[in-house]
Structures are given as structure tokens and as C-alpha cells.
């Protein structure tokens, strides 16, 4: 009898749920979905801040590079010659948007076809070229 009771205790001990492991399929699924929503949330937040950061930095960079450029001088000349600044602005806008689209596509093509190391060097050289060109514009 004694031994039987001891046996029972042993069995009930081993049956006791182990909380370190998820014990049901439902709990596993719950944990998984929680993890997934967490991850989604994080990437969402990152994307939002990334949107502002990338757009703003590009905006400032290109704006500074473009200000007082020869394109602007061309636009200016056309505006002065014609009496319809709206049409001049429209034509220039389409051309500029198209040219920046080409720039972005060309950049993606470079990124796809060259190694990151070579890309770093190329981007560095082009930034250097831009710096020199802008300095030349400022001094002239």
C-alpha cells in the first residue's frame, strides 16, 4: 500500500505541467503570432522614419546641388523671354522629374551590377566631383 501511494505521487509529479515549455499547440500559435506582429510593428516604424529620412536628405542634397545651376539659368532665360512662366515651369518640371527618374534607375542598375566596394568608390568619387563642381560654382 505504501509503495502504491509513493508510486502515485511520483506519477502526479511527472504529470505536473512544465511551464518552461509551451504545452499546447494553441499557446505556440499565440506566441508565434505575437512575435510576428511585434516584428511587423518594428519594421513599420522603421519604414516610416526611413521615409522621412531618405526623402529629406535627398531633397536637401539635390536642392543644394541644383540651386543656381545652369538648368535654373535656362529656365530663367525662358521665363524672361516668354510671358507664360507657367508653361515654362511645366516643361521644366516634366524634364526634371524625368531626369531624376533616370538618375534613380541608373543608380539601381549600378547597385545591381557592381560590387558594394566598387559602388562605394564610385559614389565617393562622384560626391568628390560634386563638391569640386559646387565649390567652383560658388567661387566663380
Amino acid at each position, binding site marked *: 500500500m505504501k509503495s502504491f501511494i509513493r508510486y502515485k505521487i511520483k506519477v502526479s509529479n511527472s504529470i505536473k505541467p512544465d511551464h518552461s515549455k509551451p504545452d499546447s499547440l494553441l499557446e505556440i500559435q499565440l506566441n508565434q503570432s505575437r512575435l510576428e506582429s511585434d516584428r511587423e510593428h518594428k519594421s513599420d516604424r*522603421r*519604414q516610416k522614419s*526611413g*521615409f522621412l529620412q*531618405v*526623402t*529629406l*536628405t*535627398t*531633397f536637401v*542634397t*539635390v*536642392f*543644394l*546641388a*541644383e*540651386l*543656381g*545651376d545652369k*538648368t*535654373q*539659368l*535656362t*529656365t*530663367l532665360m*525662358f*521665363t*524672361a523671354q516668354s510671358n*507664360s*512662366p507657367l*508653361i*515654362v515651369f*511645366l*516643361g*521644366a*518640371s516634366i524634364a*526634371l*522629374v*524625368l*531626369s*531624376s*527618374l533616370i*538618375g*534613380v534607375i*541608373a*543608380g539601381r542598375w549600378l*547597385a545591381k551590377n557592381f560590387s558594394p566596394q566598387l559602388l*562605394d*568608390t564610385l*559614389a*565617393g568619387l*562622384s*560626391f*568628390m566631383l*560634386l*563638391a569640386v*563642381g*559646387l*565649390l567652383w560654382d*560658388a567661387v566663380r
Partner: protein
Amino acid sequence: MDWQLLALTFGTVFVSELGDKSQLATMSISGKSDAPRYVFLGSAAALLLASLISALLGESVAQVLPTRALKSIAAAIFALMALRLLVFKQDRSCFSRSNDRPT
């Protein structure tokens, strides 16, 4: 609608813009970035604003905006970025959405 003027402006600006500084900048940025859509957005917006300013102000741009000072600042920024890439080999660029390498 003066189509001829529109086409003339488009053609002249487009040709003078090909391979120009701003396109070079856009190309380098988009090559280093993992978010080309936003690069396009920022670049297009900057170009539009710059051209709107010149269309509105005409020749008085230089009097209203300190273009020389702004250009010097931009030159310094570009030189800094070039140094970061060429000398210090730092890859975490401000044009990437994440700090991972753009894929």
C-alpha cells in the same frame, strides 16, 4: 496652351540636365540607398522647388537666396560624404532606410 514653348522648355532643360550635377547626385544616392522610391521623391521635389523658385523670382534669385553660401555648404557636405566613403570606408549612409547594407 503653347505647346511649342512647352516642348522647347522640356527639350532644353532635359538635355542640359542629363549627366548634370543633380542627376549625378541622384544616381549616387540611389545606388547607395535601399529605398529608391523615396530617393526619387526627394530628388523630384527638390528639382521642382528649385525650378519653381527660379521661375518665380527670375534674375533676383541670387539677391533673395545666398546661393554662393548655400553652394559652399553643399560642397562641404559632399566632400564629407566622399571622405567617409573613400577614406574611412564607412558604409552606414544617411540615405538608407536601415543600417544594413543595401541589397
